[in-house]
């Protein structure tokens, strides 16, 4: 909650008087106010720049340097002021934090200097206000990345873990060729053979002069068939060995097999083996020839060696939808113009526009401003539409190129930014939610702590571990007292979401077997439910109950049984004192609940919590104990 609103707390508390006449329960006593000292001005001298503020302003945050007694270490007697040998420009923001409750991050400041100042003054950076939080996180991440990069560059060269298995060494050698000379050699050898294989594929088809016993020219591949075959075999040997080695060394074989690079590898070497298997079979020789085309995919193996290719591939993949849409719109334009041209040229004789699909070729060639000239319109109207087609082609083609380029850069930056934002969004939302529910949860926590503190005072049988209760500042105590008054007015309690859900389920499931009291009580349902309530202790002494003295540190692991006593009040008073008494079970985890039956005698007179006396009631109490396991 902003510290500024804290000034309005007295008003909110005063306005609570409006609840008093309609309250259904007596109010809790107000917290004991520490007599506040005189509010005085305090001088903070930061490297010569004097800042002055009220003492109360600084005391708002008692767990920082300035708000606690830690500042006494910096007190300078001669000048009667507090002297800090720090940066005054950044101190300005820190002091503003005390004033307004919001910490801002100045953009021109260096992030590490700012962080140092925050650390010195004991302020956690997480409370930076929403307006500056993203900027702060961005700068911080950049800084961290820079440091990390520096470290990585140093470490990676000579990081040799002595006890890496052979398999891991091999994998590392494959992934980072710079790690060892063997890996480097292997890297260059495979690269060389990829190049050789691709070159062989290309050269195979070059005409090599006529052979001795043939009339026409043959390609080199047919002339030196054996040589090329040997070369091909050698390359495929190397590739196969490499693939198998990678497969063996991969930490996760399944993932490796699924990866793109391995698929490229497989596609590169498959044709050879398939060719080996089905030789000299006339029917499938056509398919066999097609398979050889796939050998050209070996060129993609270069992408392991070139990071640029990988990035290009990635960006094409991410641009795929834009490209697809582009293609679709182009197709639409082509179909339209082809139809028009076909019908325009239908009349003329010996026209090349024999069908609409035939006109597709003309449209594409014209729109991309290629203009081969193999198909031209002859009729006037054909020429008119042809010119419109080429003009619009210029438009249609000129548009997508920058669009693709800008898409590329936009998508690239966008994905980067989206990643950042997504990473920050969860934490950001969590922070907002935490801040919001922090207020509510703080109160629930306070209730537990507060009541425990009361129990410690009144029933001093809990000789267990001493409670380490963080001393709440006055504001928090008063705010909690206000919320407590509201609870008493409405005779309902604040609970957290889990308990609410649980009790909702319980109410819907459980049968209302309890008899309802007269309409005097404002909380009609008399079910006692086994909620996963946190540990709440009652302040009065109940004999014969198995109360466990020691309280575990983690309250949340305990599940409790709640026993409600329904008072049947005879008096006309509308106040319905509701008592709760919980008995903690010795269970460590929430899922492990032991059902227990506890019998209790009914105490004749019970004192309500908080010590208010309401002894004017004659109670006929019926202890209804019902235990149900979740």
């Amino acid at each position, binding site marked *: 909650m902003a510290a500024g609103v804290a000034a309005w707390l007295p008003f909110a508390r005063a*306005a609570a*008087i*409006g609840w008093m006449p309609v309250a259904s329960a007596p109010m809790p006593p107000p917290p004991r*106010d520490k007599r506040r000292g005189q509010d005085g001005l305090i001088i903070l001298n930061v490297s010569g720049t004097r800042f002055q503020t009220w003492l109360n302003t600084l005391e708002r945050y008692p767990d920082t340097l300035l708000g606690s007694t830690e500042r006494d270490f910096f007190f300078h007697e001669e000048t009667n002021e507090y002297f800090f040998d720090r940066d005054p420009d950044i101190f300005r923001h820190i002091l503003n934090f005390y004033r307004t409750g919001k910490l801002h991050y100045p953009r021109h400041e260096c992030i590490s200097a700012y962080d140092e100042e925050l650390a010195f003054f004991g302020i956690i950076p997480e409370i930076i206000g929403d307006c500056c939080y993203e900027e702060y996180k961005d700068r911080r991440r950049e800084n961290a990345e820079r440091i990390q990069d520096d470290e990585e560059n140093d470490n990676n060269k000579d990081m040799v873990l002595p006890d890496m298995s052979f398999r891991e060494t091999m994998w590392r050698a494959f992934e980072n060729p710079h790690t060892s000379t063997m890996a480097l050699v292997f890297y260059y050898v495979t690269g060389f053979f990829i190049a050789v294989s691709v070159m062989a594929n290309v050269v195979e088809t070059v005409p090599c002069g006529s052979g001795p016993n043939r009339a026409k020219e043959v390609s080199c591949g047919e002339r030196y068939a054996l040589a090329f075959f040997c070369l091909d075999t050698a390359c495929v040997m190397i590739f196969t060995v490499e693939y198998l080695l990678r497969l063996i060394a991969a930490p996760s074989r399944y993932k490796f097999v699924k990866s793109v690079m391995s698929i490229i590898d497989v596609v590169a070497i498959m044709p050879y083996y398939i060719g080996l298997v089905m030789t000299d079979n006339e029917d499938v020789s056509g398919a066999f020839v097609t398979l050889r085309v796939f050998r050209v995919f070996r060129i993609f193996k270069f992408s392991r060696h070139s990071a640029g290719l990988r990035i290009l591939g990635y960006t094409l993949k991410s641009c795929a939808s834009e490209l697809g849409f582009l293609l679709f719109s182009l197709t639409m334009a082509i179909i339209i113009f082809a139809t028009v041209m076909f019908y325009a040229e239908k009349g003329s004789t010996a026209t090349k526009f024999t069908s609409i699909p035939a006109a597709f070729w003309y449209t594409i060639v014209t729109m991309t401003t290629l203009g081969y000239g193999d198909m031209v319109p002859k009729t006037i109207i054909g020429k008119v539409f042809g010119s419109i087609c080429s003009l619009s082609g210029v438009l249609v083609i000129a548009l997508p190129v920058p669009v693709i380029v800008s898409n590329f850069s936009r998508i690239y930056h966008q994905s980067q930014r989206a990643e950042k934002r997504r990473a920050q969004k969860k934490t950001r939302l969590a922070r907002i939610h935490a801040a919001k529910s922090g207020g509510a949860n703080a109160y629930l926590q306070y209730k537990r702590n507060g009541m425990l503190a009361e129990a410690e005072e009144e029933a001093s049988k809990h000789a267990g571990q001493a409670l380490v209760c963080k001393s709440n500042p006055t504001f928090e105590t008063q705010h909690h007292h*206000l919320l407590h008054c509201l609870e008493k007015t409405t005779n309902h309690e604040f609970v957290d979401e889990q308990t609410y859900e649980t*009790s909702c389920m319980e109410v819907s499931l459980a049968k209302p077997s309890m008899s309802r009291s007269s309409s005097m009580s404002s909380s009609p349902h008399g079910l006692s439910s086994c909620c996963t309530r946190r540990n709440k202790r009652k302040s009065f002494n109940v004999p014969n109950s198995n109360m466990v003295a020691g309280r575990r540190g983690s309250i949340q692991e305990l599940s409790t049984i709640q026993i409600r006593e329904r008072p049947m009040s005879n008096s006309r008073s509308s106040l319905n004192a509701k008592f709760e008494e919980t008995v903690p079970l010795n269970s460590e985890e929430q899922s492990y609940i032991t059902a227990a039956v506890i019998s209790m005698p009914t105490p004749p007179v019970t004192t309500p919590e908080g010590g208010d006396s309401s002894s004017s009631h004659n109670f006929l109490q019926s202890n209804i104990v019902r235990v149900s396991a979740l």
Partner: protein
Amino acid sequence: MSSCRKRCKRELLKFAQYLFRFITGTLNADSVEDELELSAARHRPEALEQLEAQTRFSRKELQILYRGFKNECPSGVVNEDTFKEIYSQFFPQGDASTYAHFLFDAFDTDHNGSVSFEDFVMGLSILLRGTVQEKLNWAFNLYDINKDGYVTKEEMLDIIKSIYDMMGKCTYPTLKEETPRQHVEIFFQKMDKNRDGVVTIDEFIDCCQNDENIMKSMQLFENVI
């Protein structure tokens, strides 16, 4: 007929303008209207001495109050939205806006839609330093939504519902639909002596003075400042 012609002419003119702008390439007509910012009502409170005389606060207390007030509302007056926002921050689990609305009406004694520092401090003076009679008077004024001197069941139901709204959803036991109504019934049974369906100020004060709990709770916030 002439209106038809006028409309046609207007449409034609618009189309011609559109065509012109299409050719010259200035289609997006930026309609930038200078939004007249309502100058926030600035209000300066009365002098410290006067306020000291009119309320039961000391000088120092008034200073502290004013500093807090001015921090949240630099313009010197609180309008209803700011009021609701400030009040809602104290009750994060529920919806405090309805009750804040009633409170605002109770503080805004001259009904001008804003609460100045004087209104604020007068109200606080009654609530914190007033006699029990004055406090009860103030509470009755709060409940009496239309300020006619009578508190009807409907008014009371509104008030009680707004109080329950502040609790929010996650309560134990879960809030039921008829809980506020039952609460109102209890209240009326206690307060409405002559069973005429409304509670007058005298009935209210009488009944409260006879109730120990209420009397005690009135003294609860004496030392808030």
